[in-house]
């Protein structure tokens, strides 16, 4: 439905406006297009090419075919990072969305101080990932010290630490989206449900949730892609530590490392690993794209047609 709307509106463009604008092509669109090529298109294409090469810097690349990919798939640290990321994504999607929806639902009821609460919940979202990671690493270390241990001693601490950090950061953001969705639920539908004698939970599950499905789509999409792309928080909180040496493959595995950080640290091992890191980046890109598109497709189907 959306696509159709777009096509219609682009068709109404009149020649009266189109022709003169087109003459100003170098001013209106060329600067952005050049920057977009420098900042995105060229690095993207070069990145795909280099994933098939062995290189130190891009100018000395030599074609090696699929060997980078096979090394990436046989890398135990990459597999570990994948499962760590997947588990982290599932837990954080559930925690963030359930909590954010509950808070938003409560705050849209008539209640004293709801504006103040909204302000407080949203605030952590403005703090950058690196600073957040630092603050929380100090707090977790201070707590764990009472039990004679520390944050990077055990990857489980790192995992739940990251979940708490991300929940603290993102619940406010998702709450804002859910509040916008809840306020858009048609008043007459709620009234009709009340007149028909629906109970509170019936109204919630049969009227409100189907109506805020678009917000749920957006929030699960954002939490999913955010947790797969997470880097700064991971780097600043644990930096991937603790490190364990895998006896079978004789490689170092960072136990609390997410995929993005794994790619970054692979690149930093040595020059020989640049190609492998780039191949991992391509796999990572395809994974994120497929997940994002599948999720959009799945939840869009469940949205109410209005």
């Amino acid at each position, binding site marked *: 439905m959306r696509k159709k709307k777009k096509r219609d*509106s*682009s068709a109404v*463009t*009149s020649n*009266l*406006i*189109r022709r*003169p*604008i087109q003459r100003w092509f170098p*001013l*209106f669109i060329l600067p*952005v*297009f050049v*920057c*977009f090529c*420098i*900042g*995105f*298109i*060229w*690095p*993207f294409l*070069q*990145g795909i090419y280099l994933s098939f090469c062995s290189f130190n810097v891009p100018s000395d690349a030599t074609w090696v075919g699929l060997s980078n990919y096979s090394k990436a798939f046989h890398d135990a640290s990459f597999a570990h990072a994948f499962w760590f990321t997947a588990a982290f994504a599932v837990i954080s999607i559930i925690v963030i969305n359930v909590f954010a929806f509950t808070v938003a639902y*409560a705050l849209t*009821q008539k*209640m*004293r101080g709801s504006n103040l609460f909204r302000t*407080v919940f*949203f*605030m952590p*979202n*403005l*703090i*950058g*990932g*690196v*600073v957040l*990671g*630092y*603050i929380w690493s*100090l707090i977790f270390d201070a707590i764990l010290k009472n039990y004679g241990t520390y944050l990077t001693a055990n990857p489980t601490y790192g995992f739940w630490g990251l979940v708490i950090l991300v929940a*603290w950061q993102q619940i406010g953001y998702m709450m*804002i*989206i859910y509040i*916008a969705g809840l306020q858009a639920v048609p008043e007459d539908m709620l009234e009709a449900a009340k007149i028909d004698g629906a109970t509170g939970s019936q109204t919630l599950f049969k009227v409100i949730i189907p109506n805020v499905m678009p917000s749920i789509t*957006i929030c699960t999409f*954002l939490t999913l*892609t955010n947790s797969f792309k997470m*880097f*700064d928080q991971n780097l*600043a909180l644990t930096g991937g530590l603790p490190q364990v040496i895998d006896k079978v493959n004789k490689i170092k595995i960072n136990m609390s490392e997410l995929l993005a950080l794994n790619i*970054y640290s692979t690149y930093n091992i040595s020059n020989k690993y640049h190609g492998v890191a*780039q191949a991992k*980046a*391509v796999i*990572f890109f395809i994974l*994120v*794209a497929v997940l*994002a598109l599948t999720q959009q497709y799945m939840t869009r189907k469940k949205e109410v047609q209005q």
Partner: protein
Amino acid sequence: MKVKRYSTGSTILTIVFTVLCLIWIVPIFEVITNSVKTNASINQSAFALPNSESFVGITNYIKGLTFGNYPFLKSAGYSVWISVVSTLLILLCCSMAAWYIARVGSSFARGFYYLCLFSMIVPFQMVMFTLTNTADELHLNTPWTIPIIYLGFGAGLAIFMFVGFVKGLPLEIEEAAAIDGCGPVRTFFMVVLPMLKPTLISVGILELMWVWNDYLLPYLVLDITKYRTIPIHVQYLKGSYGTVDLGATMAIIMMAILPIIIVYLFCQKYIIKGVAAGAVKG
């Protein structure tokens, strides 16, 4: 009867949420209290409130400003410069491009638009090595030129949001301007741009938050012995953890988050609206 039940429920909710909000600001509260304590006191009892023995006033803040091998104010200056210039550049260039895309609708414009959509799902790790290399080769690796990189990598979201809004603008106003003899440049700046104001604020806030908090792009692109932003500065402190002056570090973190919180408290209406608009479009 009904009114009474409603109000008790509401009071309970208010109490629950007050407690929740107090828990919510504990991390920030901890940074504030620890930033005025002695190092020994932070180490032993991080959660204790400062008392007459451990209170050191603003000494940590004074130490924080000169602490380490890089002055904090210098990195704050670079952070402000890079984020403000990048955001203004993105707003200006992307709104112009979006108007062109929406109104011309040629195959080039449509192709560019789809590339922008595509760029929104590409994670930064995909391009980070090659982007860094390209920036070095083109000498875009200074704080004065890094806004160009931000414009290139951030164009996708901005153009997407602007195009969506421009398509909803009535064509008649621009046609009237054209009939009255207004050229495209004047039409854009005098007619279209004022109508775009709400979207400019939303996109501006999203881009500003992104660039201000961004760590990896400036870390990789800039020569960090010469130029640091606040996130890079903080990460460097973390790197020397254990040997660092904890009190001064707390003061630096406080100085890093305080400006954002103050700006937020003053413009929260716009920020929350901007975030909601950005998310709904995304």
